[in-house]
């Protein structure tokens, strides 16, 4: 093959665009690379080539190195009629041979023969020459632009025009140093790119990727996100050293500013230390959320009166930019201070009546109604835990915290900074002398916001958070708001996941079904006074359990089948289910276990197949015919007694070991005994023995779920 001699070349592809939202760029970069790879693969051009992609606010750039200049030739073979039909006895071609050759478009003498098990056949082999990559790319690149997916796209020339995240204004497409010609929407590709809006020159001709990257750099654009990030980090570190403090770390913000600037540099600004009286949470939110500034801390962790702004310019020689940012921040802080003071002209609890005007959901009433339901559930939870001997459980605290939890929704501060809901209430409660346990509970009760977000810090916070989430899930399901696919407007999946995380991480003794019962009772006793049908309640429970499976798998790393095995044995007490999962996971690696699991699977299948009237008969030892039956029966009885004791003591590992010890007896049974015996009584007795085996030993985990096809 002359593969090594194939000439290879570079593709440079840039989609020049008006400012793309920074939050979307990291994904777009990954997607552009994947789409290029997929499209090249489909054209047999990817082999031996490597693809990279870079994103900046005004451009998405792909580069492919080592791309073939021509597709490899393809060989096409078509089998025709049998030789015996195509040639007559003297070896002259028949009508069949002639028409096959005609149809394939090749002369008769180029027809070949192939041997098959059915005899010799005619065959037409054709070499299809590969097309020039240049031609293919001009067709493929517009498709790549089209296939990039965005949360919300737009048109800029009209309904029949192109769609993209923002208007495309130029396209660079260079292959092997030469421009590729195609158009997308109202833009034609060529070899000219654009520098930084204010620092660079427009219409820069480029020759290849190296030249492109160098010209961009000379014109104020750092193409590679890593380079921009590194520059920002370096400049932040240098400024922080000067302040003598430390950075208020914020990886998300760092990522955002990396994709918000083509020529990032960092400047330090200051603000009046008098604003440091305001809580840190509020100051940081103002700086970060609205202005995208990093906050600076002193060595002792308190905020320092500085901020770091990342700007899209190399420097600020006259300090004009700095003065502008300081001025904006001053006005923002002044607003925050105004809210802080005016909100607290009355006490947090005084906002309770105002919650009547804030609707939670039209059929579920106002937040005032929700608060009453939350109080009932939180009280019930605290009471449960108190009765179980948990010293921190305090019913009046749980009640008070639930009562105050939503009050901040009526304050100006939360209206302005919606992301601070809960936190504002907690801060006001603390400032107004509520018990710390209560104030912290209010502060934390929206937590956890995601799989990695911490749960509320104290038990009262856990009670209020659970009450809030249980009420949301139960209430919404009750009025038919059930998450489907991507539609989950009330974030019920997150709520259910939060319930699971709180129970597991705080190791709370709690029956999910009883907790849900408390929520449905609250829904019935308070407005909207809805009754929840038992089937609905079962559906809600299954919804929460489904999120629990998800948490066990994705957060705690258990295997799919292990989670299913344990959940089939029940998961109403999630902490207990977690213990059982740990035990199962540990014992699964031991020698006896997998074979035993296979036997259990077999046992379940036999029982499932058996006719209904064959099952449910009492076990009669006198009907045993074989030693293996008696042995298994004795082993089951003996192990069952031990497992009972071990389970009661919470020693699941030991209990599973006891069960694993049954392997020998189970194996022998299946070798020696034919379950579906001729004689009815013997057969039914054997089924009864198996049923007992399954019943006794699947209460920790149902092993028949293990090792299925679905191993993830």
């Amino acid at each position, binding site marked *: 093959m002359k593969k090594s001699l194939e000439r290879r070349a570079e593709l440079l592809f840039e989609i020049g665009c008006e400012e793309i939202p920074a939050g979307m760029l990291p994904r777009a970069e990954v997607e552009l690379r994947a789409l290029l790879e997929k499209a090249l693969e489909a054209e047999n051009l990817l082999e031996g080539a490597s693809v990279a992609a870079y994103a900046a606010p005004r451009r998405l750039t792909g580069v492919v190195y080592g791309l073939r200049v021509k597709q490899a030739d393809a060989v096409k073979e078509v089998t025709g009629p049998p030789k015996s039909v195509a040639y007559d006895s003297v070896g002259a071609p028949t009508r069949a041979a002639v028409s096959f050759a005609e149809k394939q478009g090749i002369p008769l003498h180029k027809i070949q023969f192939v041997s098959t098990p059915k005899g010799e056949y005619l065959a037409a082999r054709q070499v299809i020459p590969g097309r020039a990559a240049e031609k293919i790319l001009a067709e493929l690149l517009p498709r790549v632009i089209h296939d990039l997916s965005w949360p919300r796209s737009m048109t800029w020339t009209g309904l029949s025009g192109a769609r993209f995240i923002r208007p495309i204004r130029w396209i660079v497409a260079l292959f092997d140093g030469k421009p590729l010609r195609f158009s997308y929407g109202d833009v034609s590709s060529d070899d000219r790119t654009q520098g930084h809006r204010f620092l660079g020159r427009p219409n820069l001709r480029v020759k290849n990727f190296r030249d492109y990257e160098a010209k961009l750099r000379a014109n104020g654009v750092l193409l590679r996100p890593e380079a921009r990030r590194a520059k920002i980090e370096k400049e932040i570190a240098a400024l922080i050293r000067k302040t003598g403090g430390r950075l208020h770390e914020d990886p998300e913000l760092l990522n955002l500013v990396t994709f918000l600037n083509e020529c990032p540099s960092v400047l330090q600004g200051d603000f009046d230390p008098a604003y440091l009286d305001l809580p840190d949470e509020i100051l940081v939110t103002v700086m970060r959320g609205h202005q995208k500034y990093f906050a600076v801390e002193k060595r002792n962790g308190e905020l320092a009166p500085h901020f770091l702004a990342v700007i899209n310019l190399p420097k*600020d020689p006259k300090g004009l930019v700095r003065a502008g940012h300081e001025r904006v921040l001053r006005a923002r802080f002044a607003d925050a201070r105004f809210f802080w003071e005016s909100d607290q002209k009355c006490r947090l609890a005084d906002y309770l009546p105002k919650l009547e005007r804030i609707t939670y959901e039209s059929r579920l009433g106002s937040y005032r109604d929700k608060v009453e339901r939350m109080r009932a559930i939180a009280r019930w939870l605290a009471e449960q835990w108190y009765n179980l001997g948990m010293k921190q459980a305090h019913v009046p605290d749980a009640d008070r915290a639930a009562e105050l939890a939503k009050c901040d929704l009526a304050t100006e501060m939360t209206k302005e900074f919606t992301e601070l809901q809960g936190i504002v209430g907690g801060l006001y409660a603390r400032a107004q002398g509520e018990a710390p346990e209560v104030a912290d509970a209010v502060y934390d009760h929206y937590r956890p916001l995601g799989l990695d977000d911490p749960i509320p810090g104290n038990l009262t916070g856990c009670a209020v958070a659970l009450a809030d989430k249980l009420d949301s899930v139960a209430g919404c399901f009750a009025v038919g708001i059930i998450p489907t696919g991507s539609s989950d407007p009330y974030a019920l999946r997150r709520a259910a996941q939060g319930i699971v995380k709180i129970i597991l991480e705080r190791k709370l003794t709690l029956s999910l079904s009883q907790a849900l019962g408390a929520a449905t009772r609250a829904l019935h006793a308070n407005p909207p006074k809805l009754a929840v049908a038992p089937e609905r309640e079962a559906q809600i429970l299954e919804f929460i359990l489904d999120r629990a499976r998800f948490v066990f798998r994705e957060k705690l790393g258990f295997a799919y089948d292990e989670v299913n095995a344990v959940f089939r044995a029940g998961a109403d007490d999630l902490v207990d289910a977690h213990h059982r999962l740990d035990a199962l996971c540990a014992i699964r690696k031991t020698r006896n276990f997998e074979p035993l699991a296979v036997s259990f699977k077999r046992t379940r299948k036999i029982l499932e197949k058996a006719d209904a009237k064959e099952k449910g008969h009492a076990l009669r030892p006198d009907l045993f015919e074989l030693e293996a039956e008696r042995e298994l029966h004795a082993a089951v009885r003996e192990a069952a007694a031990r497992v009972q004791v071990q389970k009661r003591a919470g020693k699941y590992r030991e209990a599973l070991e006891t069960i694993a010890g049954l392997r020998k007896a189970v194996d022998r049974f299946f070798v020696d005994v034919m379950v579906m015996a001729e004689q009815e009584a013997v057969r039914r007795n054997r089924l009864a023995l198996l049923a007992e085996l399954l019943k006794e030993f699947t209460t920790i985990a149902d092993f028949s779920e293990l090792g299925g096809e679905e191993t993830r």
Partner: protein
Amino acid sequence: MKAKVKLEKKKQGLTVQDLILALSQFWVHRGCVLQQPYDVEVGAGTMHPETFLRVLGAAPYRVAYVQPSRRPADGRYGENPNRLYKHLQFQIVLKPSPADVQDVYLESLEAIGIRLAEHDIRFEEDNWESPTLGAWGIGWQVLLDGLEITQFTYFQQCGGVDLDPVSVELTYGLERIASFLQGVESVYDLRWSEDRSYGEIRLREEQQLSVYSFERSDAPAIRAEFEIHEKEAKGLLEGFERAKGPARERYPLVAAYDLCLKCSHLFNQLDARGVISTTERAALMARVRTLACRTAQYFVQQMSGEESVPAGEVRA
């Protein structure tokens, strides 16, 4: 007067009126019709028929105007340095949207004295939506050293109608830009003209309209007015469905739109008075939207000479 002393000390940047003149001149040179503020209360320059109705249909148009915009809930009795019951928007609509619109916009900043290379100017994602107008667009807020100075929107839909061609709308916040140019912390310290401050011209209005909106407005009367205007608007819109020939061509849809604007402002008054719950809020907004969407839909039909579709098929 305190404001006057300050005025004599610093005199940097354009006055508010020179800013208006500079922007007007800039955009008139780029083919815009210089229109006047609308004479019905509106919450934003977008609600002016020169935007709302002009972006519908295919005919090219370019327009510039100042629009005093009333947001009763933002009133602060003239005590907040940056929040106002009524602020000034300078509104540009370019239809269709030209390919170099960002560059031209940036030139307009240079025209009012902002040196682009010395400032941190960026386009940050901010998609605009008006639930009461059934309108939305894709675009940015333009930040000047961290200060939001312009809303930049490619209109996608207006009154529930998909726009074709797409218009671009630029809304400059005049007080903010003037404060930036003049380097003042409070809008009331702005120089409106060489010898008058913004406070001298507008403070009394801010104070009194805040008092009215928050303390003295008669909510039941406003509700009744809302009903009356809505009823009249509905009646007009229904009449259009039946109108034929010349009567259809001259049918007063523009008046129906005025009534819709009245309702929108009355809704804002009720909202500022704090007498509507969240649920009612959504319902009232939907009622205004229905008027706006029907007006837009009929307006498109009127321009193209189409006959009406049955009322049931009209989208809200």
